[in-house]
């Protein structure tokens, strides 16, 4: 058991014992855990404050009710009111109508929900919205400038590295993240950096060609080579 798991267990026990019944009804194990785990790490301003005792100290918990939060999405401050258990992905899609990132496996396997958080690719289905506060979130919608596609997007289009296109935004983001760091990736780096994304239609042949083209564009434009953010 990791230390954070121990912490959760402790918190859960404390919550059950709490005499004032703050967590009596409507708190499922899942929402409780998600709320408390975040409370340990991120200070937030929320309405309806609740406290539990953990490791001898009073700890404020959030949720399960909705909390107001502000997210930095593509350079714009966006506000939303979501339950603490809601993921960054679902907040983007359901609250902010930013739907480029797709929900496919919803458990950190397929990469269709990939966005950048402080310049690093993350599975947005596995990041809670409240955890994403204070971080710079970039989605696929931010890459193109007007009608001019980002070199990665252009390469995906030119090489038909898409069919149904449902995995495409995730692949585009993962490819961009890779090239930002490795403008001329080795086959091993491609395998490692794009191995966390799945396509069902079978566009990998095109994606390989797209990586080659986009890499050439990066090198030509002197892009990448160091991690953003």
């Amino acid at each position, binding site marked *: 058991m990791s230390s954070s798991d121990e912490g959760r267990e402790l918190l859960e026990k404390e919550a059950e014992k709490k005499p004032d019944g703050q967590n009596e009804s409507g708190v499922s194990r899942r929402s409780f855990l998600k709320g408390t785990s975040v409370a340990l790490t991120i200070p937030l301003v929320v309405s309806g404050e609740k406290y539990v005792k953990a490791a001898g100290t009073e700890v404020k918990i959030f949720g399960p009710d909705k909390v107001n939060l502000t997210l930095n999405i593509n350079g714009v401050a966006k506000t939303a009111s979501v*339950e603490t258990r809601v993921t960054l992905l679902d907040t983007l*899609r359901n609250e902010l109508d930013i739907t480029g990132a*797709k929900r*496919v*496996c919803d458990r950190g396997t397929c990469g269709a929900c990939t966005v950048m958080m402080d310049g690093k690719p993350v599975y947005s289905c596995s990041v809670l919205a409240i955890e994403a506060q204070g971080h710079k979130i970039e989605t696929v919608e931010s890459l193109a400038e007007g009608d001019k596609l980002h070199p990665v997007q252009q390469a995906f*289009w030119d090489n038909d590295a898409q069919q149904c296109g*449902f995995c495409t935004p995730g692949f585009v983001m993962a490819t961009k993240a890779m090239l930002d760091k490795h403008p001329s990736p080795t086959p091993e780096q491609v395998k490692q950096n794009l191995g966390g994304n799945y396509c069902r239609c079978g566009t990998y042949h095109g994606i390989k060609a797209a990586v080659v083209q986009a890499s050439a564009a990066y090198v030509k434009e002197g892009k990448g080579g160091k991690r953003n953010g």
Partner: protein
Amino acid sequence: MAEYKWPEEGKRTHIGKRISRIDGPDKVRGKAKYTYDLNRPGMLFGKVLRSPYAHAKIVSIDLSAAEKMPGVKAVKIIQEPGAEIQWAGDEIAVVAAETEGQAEDAMRAIKVQYEKLPHFVNEQNFETIPEANRRKPSEAVNGDPVKAFAESDVVIEGNYGNEIITHCCLETHGLIAEWEDDKNLLVHQSTQSVSANGPQFAQALGMPAGNVRLKMEHLGGGFGSKFPVDRWGIEAAKLSKLAGGKPIKLMLERNSELMVAGSRPSVFAHVKVGAKKDGTITAWESNAWGSGGVGNFNFVGQMPYVIKPADRKEAFTVIGTNTGPQRAWRAPNHPQACLITMAAFEDLAAELKMDPLEFFLKNLSLTGTRANVYRDELMKAAEMIDWKKMWRPRGEGAPGSTKIVKRGLGLSLHTWGGSGHASDCDLTIHPDGSVELKMGTQDLGVGTRTVLNIVAADTLGLPLNMIKVHIGDNRFPVSGGSGGSTTVGGISASTRRAAVDALNIMFEKLAPAMNTTPEKLEAVGQKVQEIGNPSNSMTWQQACAKLGTQPLTTRGKNPGKETLTTGGVGGVQMADVSVDMETGIVKMNNFVAVQDCGLIIDMKTCESQVFGAMIFGVTYSLFEERVMDSQTGKMLNPNMEFYKLAGLSDIGNFKVHMMTGKGYDERGVIGVGEPPTVSPGAAISNAVANAIGVRVPNLPMTPDRVLNALATKGEKKGGKS
């Protein structure tokens, strides 16, 4: 005068070229809106409670707690107490709430009592299948197989099979249903069947077909599984009514998608094949069984696949199991039949110590009318994979083999129909010269919009960007569902006819002003001009302005005058693999496909279909299978961690060659989505057998199956995994 028939090679401006899909920029930017992406005003979220048991009777359902949950707007029973549930994941009740989380909470608060009943979910071993689950066997006999086997010089027997796999669409099945008023339903559905599903909703809901509007801009995969309106679709519409008509978004969860939204039947077979010493195939007998879950399917008539000796017998028993029903899966029945047939024939070639390339070439007369196509394709594929240099007899290991890693080559051939479905197309030329095209079709990712754009632009002599394509709405002219590779043939033909009719109406109007007759006019390079006298011309804009103030709309149909689409294709694939004899891991080195599909509209997206089908094939050959737990009757891998898809680094080097030009183009447009999906299992299985010296009987060839096969090496051939 414009003609319906397709233009000759030299006169094609867009057709057959490599054109990037027109909706590509929207897809790479995340702008393309799929059903899953739509947020309708006041939208609620729907969640379905599903049976945890594979076979059970519903004793009672209590909705009262769920109804009181926060945010809940409607709760509804789908199957009443007393109903018998036949598979885990079947729909019990449905709930709508303001947020997705609230809907999930309420779904969990529904109390259901079940009376568990005995279930059966694993059909791989025929001996263990209860009598009650074996449906009536069917068989077909041609010629006199008993006599033919008696007269054969060599007879081999073997077991071969394919596990059940699922469609695993990345955009799960689902819809948003809303009532615009008491009488009119608006549905946004993720479907392969835009034109047909409105009437299906109407029928199920007891309302006039014209009162259902169905729309879909983009579709995140279907592969044959997204034709029906589905029970959850109907229930979402009913639930929306209960919730005052508010939009209800009901997209399946990933686990439901894999459990209930479609699977490809398994087929397992014991096969006997006879031949003469020189390799001529003389007789076939197969005793097969397979399951489509609770669903039925017919497999008789499939085997042997493509290569059919005159004397043959096939028998097949459908096995009913307590698992979700099968659905059409890219080239229904063909991949299973192809694997069993081509693997048995390759085993026969190995027994005769023949090179399979020579063996298949020798027996091509048994393929019927396409023998010459297959011959050309076999030779081309052999050249692409360097077969002559690389192939070695079974178990010897192709060049590059080591003591531990063995390399091998395998091949397979396949066929499919693919002639165009019925399709109506409305083409409108506006007086300002812009052109619109409307059709109630859909794009599964094959490039439907791009194909429509290309055909219209080529016919009218215009650049691609002067045509606006509208699809994905059942208010547009009716076009068939996208299945069986019928789309591209149907939509190309109706669009061609609509565009030709429009031109001829224009030519009638313009001829007097141009001092000529309509039959002497043509539309090329954004001009209308006299054939052979291009100085007598008018720009497209000038010509359209002469139409007057009213736009000109024509409706093209398929079928119609002139044959613009036909069916019947052949394809050959060859695989080159390496197998680690210690770990059982199979790795793709090279994989080549040679395919014909008549006249190709867009070479780029056409090739993508073939590449995609090959990758599909690598996936079902090496990784994916539905795993059912006999004890609980549940699917053990309804997710994407353990339901394995191939990844970017699993595919090896691929090459595709499309057969085009004389002998192919004049057959008109033929679909290509299905055929290249058929051969990979057989080609890769044959390559593995060639590498390791023994047949891995069943797909997928996971390490455990490969090691099991190696363990039987030296025992009776064709052992079971």
